[in-house]
Protein backbone atom coordinates (compact mmCIF):
# COMPACT_ATOMS: atom_id res chain seq x y z
CA UNK A 1 0.00 0.00 0.00
CA UNK A 2 2.91 2.34 0.69
CA UNK A 3 3.88 1.90 -2.97
CA UNK A 4 0.45 3.00 -4.12
CA UNK A 5 0.81 6.00 -1.84
CA UNK A 6 4.20 6.78 -3.39
CA UNK A 7 2.75 6.35 -6.85
CA UNK A 8 -0.11 8.77 -6.19
CA UNK A 9 2.21 11.32 -4.59
CA UNK A 10 4.43 11.02 -7.67
CA UNK A 11 1.53 11.67 -10.01
CA UNK A 12 0.62 14.81 -8.08
CA UNK A 13 4.25 15.95 -8.09
CA UNK A 14 4.29 15.33 -11.84
CA UNK A 15 1.82 18.16 -12.38
CA UNK A 16 4.34 20.64 -11.00
CA UNK A 17 7.14 19.17 -13.09
CA UNK A 18 4.94 19.41 -16.17
CA UNK A 19 4.53 23.12 -15.46
CA UNK A 20 8.31 23.49 -15.10
CA UNK A 21 8.64 21.78 -18.45
CA UNK A 22 5.82 23.48 -20.37
CA UNK A 23 7.45 26.92 -20.46
CA UNK A 24 10.79 25.48 -21.54
CA UNK A 25 9.13 23.35 -24.21
CA UNK A 26 7.11 26.28 -25.52
CA UNK A 27 10.15 28.51 -25.97
CA UNK A 28 12.16 25.76 -27.58
CA UNK A 29 9.24 24.78 -29.81
CA UNK A 30 8.63 28.27 -31.19
CA UNK A 31 12.18 29.65 -31.27
CA UNK A 32 14.47 26.58 -31.12
CA UNK A 33 15.91 28.35 -28.15
CA UNK A 34 17.08 26.64 -24.95
CA UNK A 35 16.65 28.91 -21.98
CA UNK A 36 19.34 27.96 -19.47
CA UNK A 37 17.91 30.50 -17.01
CA UNK A 38 14.50 28.81 -17.06
CA UNK A 39 14.90 27.33 -13.56
CA UNK A 40 16.08 30.66 -12.21
CA UNK A 41 13.00 32.37 -13.68
CA UNK A 42 10.89 29.86 -11.73
CA UNK A 43 12.79 30.75 -8.55
CA UNK A 44 12.42 34.48 -9.26
CA UNK A 45 8.66 33.91 -9.52
CA UNK A 46 8.77 32.08 -6.20
CA UNK A 47 10.56 35.03 -4.58
CA UNK A 48 8.11 37.46 -6.16
CA UNK A 49 5.27 35.48 -4.61
CA UNK A 50 7.00 35.45 -1.26
CA UNK A 51 7.67 39.18 -1.43
CA UNK A 52 4.14 40.10 -2.41
CA UNK A 53 2.41 37.83 0.11
CA UNK A 54 4.74 37.84 3.11
CA UNK A 55 6.37 41.24 2.84
CA UNK A 56 3.82 43.41 1.02
CA UNK A 57 0.90 41.57 2.61
CA UNK A 58 -1.00 41.05 -0.62
CA UNK A 59 -3.84 38.49 -0.64
CA UNK A 60 -2.34 35.19 -1.96
CA UNK A 61 -4.78 34.97 -4.88
CA UNK A 62 -4.07 38.56 -5.88
CA UNK A 63 -0.40 37.70 -5.39
CA UNK A 64 -0.60 34.88 -7.94
CA UNK A 65 -2.17 37.23 -10.49
CA UNK A 66 0.43 39.87 -9.76
CA UNK A 67 3.33 37.44 -10.21
CA UNK A 68 1.87 36.14 -13.47
CA UNK A 69 1.45 39.68 -14.83
CA UNK A 70 4.94 40.80 -13.75
CA UNK A 71 6.63 37.67 -15.12
CA UNK A 72 4.69 37.77 -18.40
CA UNK A 73 5.53 41.44 -18.94
CA UNK A 74 9.19 40.83 -18.07
CA UNK A 75 9.19 37.84 -20.43
CA UNK A 76 7.86 39.92 -23.32
CA UNK A 77 10.30 42.78 -22.76
CA UNK A 78 13.27 40.49 -22.11
CA UNK A 79 12.66 38.58 -25.30
CA UNK A 80 11.94 41.64 -27.42
CA UNK A 81 14.88 43.72 -26.28
CA UNK A 82 17.51 41.19 -25.20
CA UNK A 83 17.04 37.60 -26.33
CA UNK A 84 15.79 38.41 -29.86
CA UNK A 85 19.14 40.06 -30.48
CA UNK A 86 21.01 36.80 -30.02
CA UNK A 87 18.60 34.50 -31.86
CA UNK A 88 19.88 33.21 -35.16
CA UNK A 89 21.26 30.17 -36.90
CA UNK A 90 23.95 29.74 -34.26
CA UNK A 91 22.47 28.19 -31.11
CA UNK A 92 25.43 29.13 -28.92
CA UNK A 93 24.77 32.88 -28.28
CA UNK A 94 21.31 32.37 -26.69
CA UNK A 95 22.72 29.61 -24.50
CA UNK A 96 25.60 31.83 -23.37
CA UNK A 97 23.33 34.80 -22.73
CA UNK A 98 20.78 32.81 -20.72
CA UNK A 99 23.62 31.11 -18.84
CA UNK A 100 24.85 34.58 -17.94
CA UNK A 101 21.34 35.61 -16.95
CA UNK A 102 21.15 32.55 -14.73
CA UNK A 103 24.30 33.60 -12.85
CA UNK A 104 23.14 37.20 -12.59
CA UNK A 105 19.71 36.21 -11.26
CA UNK A 106 21.14 33.78 -8.69
CA UNK A 107 23.55 36.41 -7.38
CA UNK A 108 20.94 39.15 -7.38
CA UNK A 109 18.58 36.92 -5.36
CA UNK A 110 21.42 36.06 -3.01
CA UNK A 111 22.17 39.75 -2.53
CA UNK A 112 18.56 40.72 -1.92
CA UNK A 113 17.17 37.74 0.00
CA UNK A 114 20.35 36.08 1.44
CA UNK A 115 21.08 32.36 1.11
CA UNK A 116 18.39 31.35 3.62
CA UNK A 117 15.80 28.84 2.54
CA UNK A 118 12.34 30.35 2.19
CA UNK A 119 8.84 29.07 1.85
CA UNK A 120 5.39 30.59 1.44
CA UNK A 121 3.23 29.23 4.24
CA UNK A 122 -0.23 28.16 3.22
CA UNK A 123 -1.72 27.80 6.69
CA UNK A 124 -4.24 25.01 7.23
CA UNK A 125 -3.78 23.86 3.61
CA UNK A 126 -0.36 22.52 4.49
CA UNK A 127 -1.74 19.83 6.78
CA UNK A 128 -5.16 19.26 5.21
CA UNK A 129 -5.40 15.88 3.52
CA UNK A 130 -7.83 13.38 2.13
CA UNK A 131 -7.35 9.89 3.57
CA UNK A 132 -8.21 7.07 1.22
CA UNK A 133 -7.34 4.45 3.85
CA UNK A 134 -4.92 3.99 6.76
CA UNK A 135 -1.83 4.32 4.61
CA UNK A 136 -2.82 6.36 1.57
CA UNK A 137 -3.50 10.01 2.30
CA UNK A 138 -3.31 12.73 -0.31
CA UNK A 139 -2.52 16.25 0.78
CA UNK A 140 -5.09 18.82 -0.27
CA UNK A 141 -2.37 21.25 -1.35
CA UNK A 142 -0.69 18.75 -3.74
CA UNK A 143 -4.13 17.91 -5.16
CA UNK A 144 -4.94 21.60 -5.71
CA UNK A 145 -1.52 22.12 -7.27
CA UNK A 146 -2.08 19.21 -9.62
CA UNK A 147 -5.48 20.61 -10.61
CA UNK A 148 -3.89 24.04 -11.15
CA UNK A 149 -1.22 22.45 -13.36
CA UNK A 150 -3.87 20.63 -15.37
CA UNK A 151 -5.82 23.88 -15.77
CA UNK A 152 -2.73 25.76 -17.00
CA UNK A 153 -1.84 22.99 -19.46
CA UNK A 154 -5.44 22.84 -20.71
CA UNK A 155 -5.38 26.62 -21.18
CA UNK A 156 -2.12 26.35 -23.14
CA UNK A 157 -3.60 23.60 -25.28
CA UNK A 158 -6.67 25.75 -25.95
CA UNK A 159 -4.55 28.77 -26.84
CA UNK A 160 -2.42 26.70 -29.19
CA UNK A 161 -5.23 24.96 -31.03
CA UNK A 162 -8.19 27.36 -30.86
CA UNK A 163 -6.86 30.90 -31.12
CA UNK A 164 -5.23 33.01 -33.80
CA UNK A 165 -2.21 33.47 -31.52
CA UNK A 166 -1.81 29.70 -31.18
CA UNK A 167 -2.05 29.28 -34.93
CA UNK A 168 0.64 31.89 -35.40
CA UNK A 169 2.87 30.25 -32.78
CA UNK A 170 2.51 26.82 -34.41
CA UNK A 171 3.22 28.31 -37.83
CA UNK A 172 6.31 30.04 -36.43
CA UNK A 173 7.42 26.77 -34.88
CA UNK A 174 7.06 25.09 -38.30
CA UNK A 175 8.77 27.70 -40.47
CA UNK A 176 9.63 31.03 -38.88
CA UNK A 177 11.30 32.39 -42.02
CA UNK A 178 8.14 32.66 -44.08
CA UNK A 179 5.77 33.82 -41.33
CA UNK A 180 6.59 37.47 -42.20
CA UNK A 181 5.23 36.70 -45.68
CA UNK A 182 1.87 36.21 -43.94
CA UNK A 183 2.21 39.53 -42.12
CA UNK A 184 3.66 38.13 -38.88
CA UNK A 185 6.41 40.05 -37.12
CA UNK A 186 8.79 37.40 -35.77
CA UNK A 187 10.26 39.67 -33.07
CA UNK A 188 6.75 40.26 -31.69
CA UNK A 189 5.70 36.60 -32.06
CA UNK A 190 8.83 35.39 -30.24
CA UNK A 191 8.15 37.90 -27.48
CA UNK A 192 4.54 36.69 -27.21
CA UNK A 193 5.79 33.09 -26.94
CA UNK A 194 8.14 34.07 -24.12
CA UNK A 195 5.36 36.07 -22.48
CA UNK A 196 3.14 32.99 -22.50
CA UNK A 197 5.99 30.75 -21.27
CA UNK A 198 6.78 33.26 -18.51
CA UNK A 199 3.15 33.24 -17.40
CA UNK A 200 3.42 29.46 -17.01
CA UNK A 201 6.78 29.87 -15.26
CA UNK A 202 5.09 32.29 -12.85
CA UNK A 203 2.44 29.74 -11.88
CA UNK A 204 5.15 27.07 -11.54
CA UNK A 205 7.18 29.40 -9.31
CA UNK A 206 4.19 30.21 -7.12
CA UNK A 207 3.40 26.52 -6.68
CA UNK A 208 7.06 25.81 -5.93
CA UNK A 209 7.02 28.52 -3.27
CA UNK A 210 4.00 26.93 -1.60
CA UNK A 211 5.21 23.36 -1.89
CA UNK A 212 8.78 23.39 -0.75
CA UNK A 213 11.72 25.36 0.51
CA UNK A 214 13.67 27.32 -2.04
CA UNK A 215 16.80 29.43 -2.08
CA UNK A 216 18.64 31.48 -4.73
CA UNK A 217 20.46 28.42 -6.08
CA UNK A 218 17.34 26.27 -6.53
CA UNK A 219 16.99 27.15 -10.23
CA UNK A 220 19.40 24.78 -12.00
CA UNK A 221 17.80 21.69 -10.41
CA UNK A 222 14.38 22.90 -11.64
CA UNK A 223 15.84 23.40 -15.10
CA UNK A 224 17.09 19.83 -15.02
CA UNK A 225 13.68 18.47 -13.97
CA UNK A 226 12.06 20.55 -16.69
CA UNK A 227 14.46 19.19 -19.31
CA UNK A 228 13.88 15.64 -18.16
CA UNK A 229 10.10 15.99 -18.22
CA UNK A 230 10.21 17.49 -21.73
CA UNK A 231 12.47 14.77 -23.08
CA UNK A 232 10.54 11.95 -21.38
CA UNK A 233 7.22 13.26 -22.70
CA UNK A 234 8.46 14.09 -26.21
CA UNK A 235 9.00 17.56 -27.61
CA UNK A 236 6.10 19.60 -28.91
CA UNK A 237 3.29 17.78 -27.13
CA UNK A 238 1.62 19.48 -24.16
CA UNK A 239 -0.02 16.32 -22.77
CA UNK A 240 3.18 14.42 -23.45
CA UNK A 241 4.89 16.96 -21.21
CA UNK A 242 2.37 16.17 -18.47
CA UNK A 243 3.10 12.47 -18.94
CA UNK A 244 6.83 13.26 -18.77
CA UNK A 245 6.32 15.21 -15.55
CA UNK A 246 4.31 12.37 -14.04
CA UNK A 247 6.89 9.72 -15.01
CA UNK A 248 9.61 11.84 -13.42
CA UNK A 249 7.51 12.56 -10.33
CA UNK A 250 6.57 8.90 -9.86
CA UNK A 251 10.18 7.77 -10.36
CA UNK A 252 11.28 10.24 -7.70
CA UNK A 253 8.66 9.29 -5.12
CA UNK A 254 9.20 5.57 -5.72
CA UNK A 255 12.95 6.17 -5.35
CA UNK A 256 12.33 8.09 -2.14
CA UNK A 257 10.20 5.21 -0.89
CA UNK A 258 13.16 2.87 -1.32
CA UNK A 259 15.54 5.29 0.32
CA UNK A 260 15.22 9.04 0.76
CA UNK A 261 18.61 9.51 -0.84
CA UNK A 262 17.42 7.84 -4.04
CA UNK A 263 14.71 10.40 -4.82
CA UNK A 264 16.55 12.56 -7.35
CA UNK A 265 18.70 9.68 -8.62
CA UNK A 266 15.62 7.58 -9.45
CA UNK A 267 14.25 10.45 -11.54
CA UNK A 268 17.51 10.69 -13.48
CA UNK A 269 17.56 6.92 -14.02
CA UNK A 270 14.00 7.00 -15.41
CA UNK A 271 15.10 9.81 -17.73
CA UNK A 272 18.12 7.84 -18.92
CA UNK A 273 15.98 4.73 -19.44
CA UNK A 274 13.60 6.71 -21.68
CA UNK A 275 16.54 8.21 -23.57
CA UNK A 276 17.89 4.73 -24.27
CA UNK A 277 14.59 3.00 -25.07
CA UNK A 278 12.63 5.82 -26.72
CA UNK A 279 15.03 8.65 -27.59
CA UNK A 280 12.22 10.79 -29.04
CA UNK A 281 10.21 10.53 -25.81
CA UNK A 282 7.05 8.67 -24.93
CA UNK A 283 4.75 10.86 -27.03
CA UNK A 284 6.78 12.47 -29.81
CA UNK A 285 5.16 15.02 -32.08
CA UNK A 286 3.99 13.03 -35.07
CA UNK A 287 3.80 15.81 -37.62
CA UNK A 288 6.65 17.96 -38.87
Amino acid at each position, binding site marked *: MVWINALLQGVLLGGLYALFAAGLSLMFGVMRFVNIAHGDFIVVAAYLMMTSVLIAGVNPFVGIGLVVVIMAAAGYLGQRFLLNRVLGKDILPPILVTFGLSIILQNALLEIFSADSRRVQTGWLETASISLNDVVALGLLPILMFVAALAVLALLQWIFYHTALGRLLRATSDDAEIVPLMGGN*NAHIFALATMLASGVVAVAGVLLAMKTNFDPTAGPARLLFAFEAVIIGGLGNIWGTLAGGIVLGVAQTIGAQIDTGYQVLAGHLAFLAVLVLRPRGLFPKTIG
Partner: protein
Amino acid sequence: MTQPLLEVRGLTAFYGDFQALFEIGFSVAEDETVAIIGANGAGKSTFLRVLTGLHASVGQDIVFSGSQIAGISADRVHKRGIAMVPEGRRLFPSLSVEENLLIGASGGRDGPWTLDAVYDLFPDLTSKRRNPGTALSGGQQQMVAIGRALMSNPKLLLCDEISLGLAPKIIKDIYAAVPRIHDLGTSIVVVEQDVGQALAVADRIYCFQEGRVSLTGTPETLTRADIAKAYFGIDEEEAA
Protein backbone atom coordinates in the same frame (compact mmCIF):
# COMPACT_ATOMS: atom_id res chain seq x y z
CA MET B 1 1.09 55.21 -69.22
CA THR B 2 -0.36 55.52 -65.72
CA GLN B 3 1.79 55.19 -62.61
CA PRO B 4 2.87 51.50 -62.37
CA LEU B 5 1.78 49.49 -59.35
CA LEU B 6 5.39 48.42 -58.80
CA GLU B 7 8.47 50.10 -60.12
CA VAL B 8 12.00 48.94 -59.37
CA ARG B 9 15.11 50.83 -60.44
CA GLY B 10 18.75 49.87 -60.11
CA LEU B 11 18.16 46.99 -57.70
CA THR B 12 21.29 45.15 -56.62
CA ALA B 13 21.55 42.29 -54.13
CA PHE B 14 24.29 40.16 -52.63
CA TYR B 15 24.71 36.85 -50.82
CA GLY B 16 27.77 37.68 -48.77
CA ASP B 17 30.39 38.69 -51.33
CA PHE B 18 28.52 37.07 -54.19
CA GLN B 19 26.51 39.53 -56.25
CA ALA B 20 23.20 37.89 -57.20
CA LEU B 21 21.40 40.82 -58.85
CA PHE B 22 22.82 43.65 -60.98
CA GLU B 23 20.97 46.95 -61.45
CA ILE B 24 17.57 45.38 -62.07
CA GLY B 25 14.87 47.59 -63.58
CA PHE B 26 11.36 46.15 -63.41
CA SER B 27 7.77 47.29 -63.38
CA VAL B 28 4.26 45.92 -63.07
CA ALA B 29 1.19 47.92 -64.08
CA GLU B 30 -2.20 47.69 -62.39
CA ASP B 31 -4.06 44.57 -63.58
CA GLU B 32 -1.02 43.21 -65.35
CA THR B 33 0.42 39.70 -65.27
CA VAL B 34 4.18 39.68 -65.65
CA ALA B 35 6.30 36.56 -66.02
CA ILE B 36 9.96 36.27 -65.09
CA ILE B 37 11.76 33.48 -66.89
CA GLY B 38 15.32 32.32 -66.66
CA ALA B 39 17.52 29.35 -65.92
CA ASN B 40 18.37 28.07 -62.45
CA GLY B 41 20.51 30.56 -60.58
CA ALA B 42 19.52 33.50 -62.79
CA GLY B 43 18.36 35.47 -59.73
CA LYS B 44 14.59 35.16 -60.18
CA SER B 45 13.80 33.88 -56.70
CA THR B 46 16.28 36.26 -55.11
CA PHE B 47 14.52 39.11 -56.87
CA LEU B 48 11.17 38.05 -55.38
CA ARG B 49 12.75 37.68 -51.95
CA VAL B 50 14.07 41.23 -52.22
CA LEU B 51 10.66 42.55 -53.28
CA THR B 52 9.01 40.94 -50.25
CA GLY B 53 11.63 42.20 -47.81
CA LEU B 54 12.99 38.72 -47.00
CA HIS B 55 16.36 39.62 -48.51
CA ALA B 56 18.11 42.98 -48.30
CA SER B 57 18.82 44.94 -51.47
CA VAL B 58 21.47 47.55 -52.08
CA GLY B 59 19.64 49.78 -54.55
CA GLN B 60 17.05 51.57 -52.44
CA ASP B 61 14.42 52.21 -55.04
CA ILE B 62 11.37 49.97 -54.96
CA VAL B 63 8.19 52.00 -55.31
CA PHE B 64 4.97 50.13 -54.66
CA SER B 65 1.58 51.76 -54.95
CA GLY B 66 3.21 55.18 -54.84
CA SER B 67 5.40 54.64 -51.77
CA GLN B 68 8.96 53.50 -51.23
CA ILE B 69 9.18 49.98 -49.77
CA ALA B 70 12.91 49.26 -50.16
CA GLY B 71 14.47 48.26 -46.86
CA ILE B 72 11.25 47.71 -44.92
CA SER B 73 10.57 44.40 -43.20
CA ALA B 74 8.67 41.55 -44.85
CA ASP B 75 5.66 41.78 -42.54
CA ARG B 76 5.26 45.46 -43.36
CA VAL B 77 5.64 44.81 -47.09
CA HIS B 78 2.87 42.25 -46.70
CA LYS B 79 0.63 44.81 -45.01
CA ARG B 80 1.20 47.19 -47.93
CA GLY B 81 -0.35 44.60 -50.22
CA ILE B 82 2.33 42.27 -51.60
CA ALA B 83 1.86 38.54 -50.98
CA MET B 84 4.07 35.71 -52.11
CA VAL B 85 3.59 32.04 -52.92
CA PRO B 86 7.04 30.77 -51.95
CA GLU B 87 9.02 28.26 -53.96
CA GLY B 88 8.33 24.74 -52.75
CA ARG B 89 4.95 25.84 -51.31
CA ARG B 90 6.18 25.72 -47.73
CA LEU B 91 2.87 25.00 -46.07
CA PHE B 92 2.91 24.83 -42.29
CA PRO B 93 2.87 21.07 -41.52
CA SER B 94 1.24 21.31 -38.11
CA LEU B 95 -1.62 23.45 -39.42
CA SER B 96 -4.70 22.16 -41.20
CA VAL B 97 -5.56 23.36 -44.70
CA GLU B 98 -8.01 25.88 -43.27
CA GLU B 99 -5.53 27.08 -40.66
CA ASN B 100 -2.91 27.54 -43.37
CA LEU B 101 -5.39 29.72 -45.24
CA LEU B 102 -6.33 31.69 -42.12
CA ILE B 103 -2.69 32.40 -41.35
CA GLY B 104 -2.54 34.16 -44.71
CA ALA B 105 -5.27 36.54 -43.60
CA SER B 106 -3.50 37.65 -40.43
CA GLY B 107 -2.44 41.24 -40.84
CA GLY B 108 -3.87 41.43 -44.34
CA ARG B 109 -6.39 43.78 -45.87
CA ASP B 110 -10.13 43.44 -46.37
CA GLY B 111 -11.29 42.49 -49.82
CA PRO B 112 -12.94 39.82 -51.94
CA TRP B 113 -10.70 36.95 -50.84
CA THR B 114 -12.23 35.01 -47.98
CA LEU B 115 -12.19 31.30 -47.08
CA ASP B 116 -15.33 30.79 -49.17
CA ALA B 117 -13.80 32.59 -52.16
CA VAL B 118 -10.67 30.42 -51.99
CA TYR B 119 -12.74 27.23 -51.71
CA ASP B 120 -14.75 28.46 -54.67
CA LEU B 121 -11.56 29.01 -56.66
CA PHE B 122 -10.14 25.62 -55.66
CA PRO B 123 -13.12 23.33 -54.92
CA ASP B 124 -10.76 20.37 -54.33
CA LEU B 125 -9.76 21.94 -51.03
CA THR B 126 -13.27 22.08 -49.58
CA SER B 127 -13.35 18.45 -48.46
CA LYS B 128 -9.76 18.65 -47.21
CA ARG B 129 -10.14 21.68 -44.99
CA ARG B 130 -9.49 19.75 -41.77
CA ASN B 131 -6.56 17.73 -43.17
CA PRO B 132 -2.97 18.68 -42.39
CA GLY B 133 -1.77 20.89 -45.23
CA THR B 134 1.11 18.59 -46.01
CA ALA B 135 -1.09 15.48 -46.29
CA LEU B 136 -2.39 16.73 -49.66
CA SER B 137 -1.17 16.00 -53.17
CA GLY B 138 1.43 18.37 -54.62
CA GLY B 139 -1.16 20.17 -56.73
CA GLN B 140 -3.54 20.61 -53.84
CA GLN B 141 -0.70 21.89 -51.67
CA GLN B 142 0.06 24.46 -54.33
CA MET B 143 -3.59 25.50 -54.30
CA VAL B 144 -3.39 25.99 -50.53
CA ALA B 145 -0.21 28.02 -50.93
CA ILE B 146 -1.88 30.27 -53.51
CA GLY B 147 -5.04 30.53 -51.42
CA ARG B 148 -2.98 31.40 -48.35
CA ALA B 149 -1.35 34.27 -50.23
CA LEU B 150 -4.70 35.47 -51.58
CA MET B 151 -6.29 35.55 -48.13
CA SER B 152 -4.48 38.81 -47.40
CA ASN B 153 -6.20 40.40 -50.40
CA PRO B 154 -2.95 41.53 -51.98
CA LYS B 155 -2.68 44.16 -54.69
CA LEU B 156 0.26 42.20 -56.07
CA LEU B 157 0.72 38.43 -55.93
CA LEU B 158 4.21 37.01 -56.46
CA CYS B 159 4.30 33.33 -57.45
CA ASP B 160 7.64 31.56 -57.28
CA GLU B 161 7.82 28.48 -59.52
CA ILE B 162 4.26 27.34 -58.89
CA SER B 163 4.47 24.64 -61.56
CA LEU B 164 7.64 23.07 -60.18
CA GLY B 165 7.32 19.31 -59.73
CA LEU B 166 3.68 19.14 -60.80
CA ALA B 167 2.07 17.07 -63.56
CA PRO B 168 1.05 19.00 -66.72
CA LYS B 169 -2.67 18.49 -66.04
CA ILE B 170 -2.30 19.92 -62.52
CA ILE B 171 -0.24 22.86 -63.82
CA LYS B 172 -3.06 23.61 -66.25
CA ASP B 173 -5.62 23.57 -63.42
CA ILE B 174 -3.51 25.89 -61.31
CA TYR B 175 -2.87 28.35 -64.11
CA ALA B 176 -6.60 28.33 -64.87
CA ALA B 177 -7.02 30.24 -61.60
CA VAL B 178 -4.83 33.12 -62.75
CA PRO B 179 -7.50 34.97 -64.80
CA ARG B 180 -9.97 34.74 -61.91
CA ILE B 181 -7.40 36.15 -59.48
CA HIS B 182 -6.77 38.90 -61.98
CA ASP B 183 -10.45 39.69 -62.35
CA LEU B 184 -10.67 40.43 -58.64
CA GLY B 185 -8.11 43.20 -58.98
CA THR B 186 -4.79 41.54 -58.17
CA SER B 187 -1.73 42.02 -60.36
CA ILE B 188 0.49 38.98 -60.66
CA VAL B 189 4.17 38.25 -61.11
CA VAL B 190 4.98 34.62 -61.91
CA VAL B 191 8.50 33.25 -61.85
CA GLU B 192 8.50 30.34 -64.23
CA GLN B 193 11.05 28.03 -65.83
CA ASP B 194 8.45 26.71 -68.24
CA VAL B 195 8.72 29.29 -71.02
CA GLY B 196 5.60 28.07 -72.84
CA GLN B 197 3.53 28.48 -69.69
CA ALA B 198 4.96 31.93 -69.06
CA LEU B 199 4.20 33.10 -72.59
CA ALA B 200 0.66 31.76 -72.34
CA VAL B 201 -0.21 33.53 -69.13
CA ALA B 202 1.73 36.80 -69.15
CA ASP B 203 1.07 40.24 -70.57
CA ARG B 204 4.79 40.95 -70.41
CA ILE B 205 7.93 38.88 -69.96
CA TYR B 206 11.24 39.59 -68.27
CA CYS B 207 14.08 37.17 -68.85
CA PHE B 208 16.81 37.03 -66.19
CA GLN B 209 20.30 35.77 -66.91
CA GLU B 210 23.08 35.67 -64.34
CA GLY B 211 21.45 38.33 -62.20
CA ARG B 212 20.64 40.74 -65.02
CA VAL B 213 17.54 41.44 -67.08
CA SER B 214 18.55 40.03 -70.44
CA LEU B 215 15.29 40.61 -72.29
CA THR B 216 11.88 42.22 -71.89
CA GLY B 217 8.88 42.29 -74.15
CA THR B 218 5.40 41.01 -74.75
CA PRO B 219 4.71 37.39 -75.76
CA GLU B 220 3.56 38.63 -79.18
CA THR B 221 6.77 40.48 -79.97
CA LEU B 222 9.37 38.03 -78.63
CA THR B 223 10.73 35.41 -80.98
CA ARG B 224 11.87 31.95 -79.94
CA ALA B 225 15.42 32.84 -80.90
CA ASP B 226 15.36 36.03 -78.77
CA ILE B 227 14.18 34.07 -75.78
CA ALA B 228 16.69 31.25 -76.25
CA LYS B 229 19.51 33.76 -76.42
CA ALA B 230 18.30 35.70 -73.40
CA TYR B 231 17.59 32.53 -71.43
CA PHE B 232 20.74 30.56 -72.06
CA GLY B 233 23.07 33.32 -73.18
CA ILE B 234 23.80 31.56 -76.48
CA ASP B 235 22.69 32.31 -79.98
CA GLU B 236 20.51 29.49 -81.32
CA GLU B 237 21.85 29.90 -84.83
CA GLU B 238 25.44 29.92 -83.61
CA ALA B 239 24.73 26.88 -81.47
CA ALA B 240 23.29 25.09 -84.47
